[in-house]
C-alpha cells in the first residue's frame, strides 16, 4: 500500500506543495534562527577560539566570562609555572583602552598584550606583516575589521570612503604612540570594538597604571597530563580558577545564556517557526486527509486494516517531513553561505540539524495524529453516500 500512499500524496500537487511549503518554512526558520543564535553565541568566546595554543586558562575565581577581567598580581604567573604538570605558562593582558583617531574622536579598543618573548596568544591569521614585528618599538597589530572600520581615517573629501589604516600608520593609545606593523584577521567577537595586539609589557604601559594588570595566565599542560587534573592542581596551589579551553568557552557561553536576553529572543523566533510550521503543515495535511476521506473509507470497505491506513498516513507524513526538512535546511545553509562575508553570525552545527529534524518530526507526527484520528473514526459506510 506504500505506493498508493505516495501517489495519493504527490498526485495532489496543490496540497502536496502546500504541506511541503509549511514544513520547509518551519525547517528554514528553525534552522536559520538557531544557526544565527549559535553563531552569535560562538562570538562570545571568539577570542578563546583564536587563542588556540594554550590548554588551560587561569584567572581570578570571580571571573564570570572572557570579558569579565579581574586582574591578578604578576607573581601569580610564577606560582602557576611551579605547579606540577604545567609545561609552560605565559601572561596575557586583555583590556579596553581608548585610541585617539585622526579626527580627534576616541575609539575604545580591545588591547591584547602577549608574552614579550614567545608572543603566545597571537592572532591566528596575519593579513599583512608578521607577528614577530611586534618586537619592534611601539608596534601594534590591528584586526582588519577594525582597520577598515572604526579605526579607519576620515575620507579626504566629504561623502568619500574612509581610508583604512595600514602598516606604517600610527595610533595614539592612551597618550602613547603606537605604530601599526601588521594587520590580522580575528574571529568576530560579541563586542564590536577593534582588536589591537601588542606585547605584554607594552600593553601594561599603554594601560592606566594599576597595582594588578595580569588578566589571564595561559598554560600548556605537559604531554600526557590530564588537563582537568592540571586545572585542579593549579586551583589548589594558587587559589585561582583554572579552566580548560572548552571549559572557559562553556563558562562564557553559559554566562550569556543566563544573564542576557539572547536565548529568549531567538527562542521566540524558533518557537514561532515551529508553531507556524505546525499550523500550516498540520492544517494542510489534515485537509488533505479530509479531502481523501472517502477514498480511505473505500479502502476500509474493501478490507484495508487500520494498521495499513495508519502506515499510509505515517509514510505520507514522513515523506513530506523529510523533504520539507531537507529543503529548509538546504535553504538555511545557502543563506549562511551567501552571507558568509558579512556581519552575520551564522553557525550551523550537526546538533542544530538534529534539533530541526526532531522539530519537523514532531510537527509531522502531530499532523499525522490529527489525520489518523479522522481516518480511524471514518465509517466505511460513508462510501455508499452519494
Amino acid at each position: 500500500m506504500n505506493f498508493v500512499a505516495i501517489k495519493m500524496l504527490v498526485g495532489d500537487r496543490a496540497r502536496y506543495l502546500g504541506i511541503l511549503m509549511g514544513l520547509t518554512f518551519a525547517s528554514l526558520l528553525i534552522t536559520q534562527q538557531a544557526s544565527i543564535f549559535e553563531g552569535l553565541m560562538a562570538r562570545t568566546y571568539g577570542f578563546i577560539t583564536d587563542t588556540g595554543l594554550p590548554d588551560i586558562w587561569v584567572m581570578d575565581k570571580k571571573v564570570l566570562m572572557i570579558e569579565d577581567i579581574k586582574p591578578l598580581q604578576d607573581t601569580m604567573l610564577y606560582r602557576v609555572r611551579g605547579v606540577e604538570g604545567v609545561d609552560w605558562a605565559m601572561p596575557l593582558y586583555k583590556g579596553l583602552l581608548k585610541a585617539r583617531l585622526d579626527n580627534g574622536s576616541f575609539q575604545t579598543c580591545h588591547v591584547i598584550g602577549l608574552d614579550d618573548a614567545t608572543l603566545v596568544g597571537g592572532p591566528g591569521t596575519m593579513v599583512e606583516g608578521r607577528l614577530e614585528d611586534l618586537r619592534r618599538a611601539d608596534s601594534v597589530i590591528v584586526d582588519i575589521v577594525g582597520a577598515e572600520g572604526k579605526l579607519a581615517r576620515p575620507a579626504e573629501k566629504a561623502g568619500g570612503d574612509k581610508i583604512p589604516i595600514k602598516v606604517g600608520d600610527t595610533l595614539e593609545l592612551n597618550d602613547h604612540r603606537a605604530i601599526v606593523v601588521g594587520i590580522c584577521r580575528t574571529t568576530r567577537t560579541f563586542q564590536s570594538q577593534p582588536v589591537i595586539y601588542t606585547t605584554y609589557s607594552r600593553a601594561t604601559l599603554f594601560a592606566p597604571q594599576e597595582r594588578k594588570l595580569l588578566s589571564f595566565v595561559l598554560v600548556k599542560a605537559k604531554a600526557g597530563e590530564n588537563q582537568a587534573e592540571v586545572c585542579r592542581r593549579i586551583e589548589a596551589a594558587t587559589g585561582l580558577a583554572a579552566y580548560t579551553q572548552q571549559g572557559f568557552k562553556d563558562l562564557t557561553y553559559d554566562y550569556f545564556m543566563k544573564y542576557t536576553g539572547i536565548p529568549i529572543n531567538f527562542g521566540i523566533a524558533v518557537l514561532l517557526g515551529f508553531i507556524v510550521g505546525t499550523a500550516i503543515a498540520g492544517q494542510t495535511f489534515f485537509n488533505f486527509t479530509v479531502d481523501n476521506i472517502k477514498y480511505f473509507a473505500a479502502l476500509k470497505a474493501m478490507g484495508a486494516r487500520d494498521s495499513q491506513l495508519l502506515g499510509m498516513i505515517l509514510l505520507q507524513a514522513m515523506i513530506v517531513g523529510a523533504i520539507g526538512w531537507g529543503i529548509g535546511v538546504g535553504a538555511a545553509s545557502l543563506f549562511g553561505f551567501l552571507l558568509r562575508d558579512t556581519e552575520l553570525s551564522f553557525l550551523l552545527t550537526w546538533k542544530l540539524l538534529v534539533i530541526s529534524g526532531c522539530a519537523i518530526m514532531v510537527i509531522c507526527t502531530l499532523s499525522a495524529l490529527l489525520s489518523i484520528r479522522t481516518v480511524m473514526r471514518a465509517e466505511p459506510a460513508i462510501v455508499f453516500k452519494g
Partner: protein
Amino acid sequence: MVETATEIAVSCAGVTKAYGSGQARVTALRGIDLEVRQGELLMLVGPSGCGKTTLISVIAGILDHDDGECRVFGEDLKAMSGSRRTRFRGDNIGFVFQQFNLIPTLTIAENVAVPLLIAGVSRREAVGRGRDLLNRVAIGDRWTALPSKLSGGQQQRVAIARALVHNPRLIVCDEPTSSLDHETGHKVMELMREVAAGDGRSLVVVTHDSRIFEFADRIARMDDGRIVSVTEKA
C-alpha cells in the same frame, strides 16, 4: 471460511437498524427477511430513504445492525471481531459505488489493483492482474490513464474490474447506473451480467433505475425499511 450446505449467499432474518436516539431516532430497517442465492443478481429497489443503502451496508459488513441475524456465506458478521470482519470483506466482498470512488492519482490499472494490494499481493503482480481485468471489461488499452481522463461509463467499468480483481463471492453495487446515461447504464449492466455474475458469484444491486430491472434475476422491493415484495424474473 465456513461453507454452508445450502446455496444461500446471504440470509437476513428480522434485521433492524436505527440511527440516532430519542426524538431524533430514525428507523432505517424494520425487520428485514431476505435471502440472496449464490450466482444470482438480486436488485434492491425502492424509493429514496427506504433503507436500501443501509441494508447493503449491513450485508457488506460495513455497518452493524441492531437486532436480527445477517449471515454471509454462513458467517455472522456481527459476531466477528473488527479485524476478522475486515479480512472477511477483503476476501469475499467486492464493491461498486455510485460515485466510483476511484483514487484520482492512481492509474486505472493501479486502481483495479487496490484490493490485491490490500491483501498483500506485490505491486507488479497486482497491477498485472488489474490490467487483465481491464481487458475483460474492454478498457485494457487505457490502463495507464488516470480516472479523470475517462467517461463516467468507462470509470464504472474500472470500478467493476476493481470489484472483481480479487475474485470475491459477493459483489454489492450501490446505484451503479445512476451517474450514467441510459445507453451507458445498459452497457454497464450487460457487463455486470457477463463478467461479474458468473462462477457462482452473487450480486446485490441497489437501484431505483427501472430501466435496468431487466438484468435482475430477482427484484426485492423495499419501502419504509421493509421488504414489501420479492419477484422472480419472468
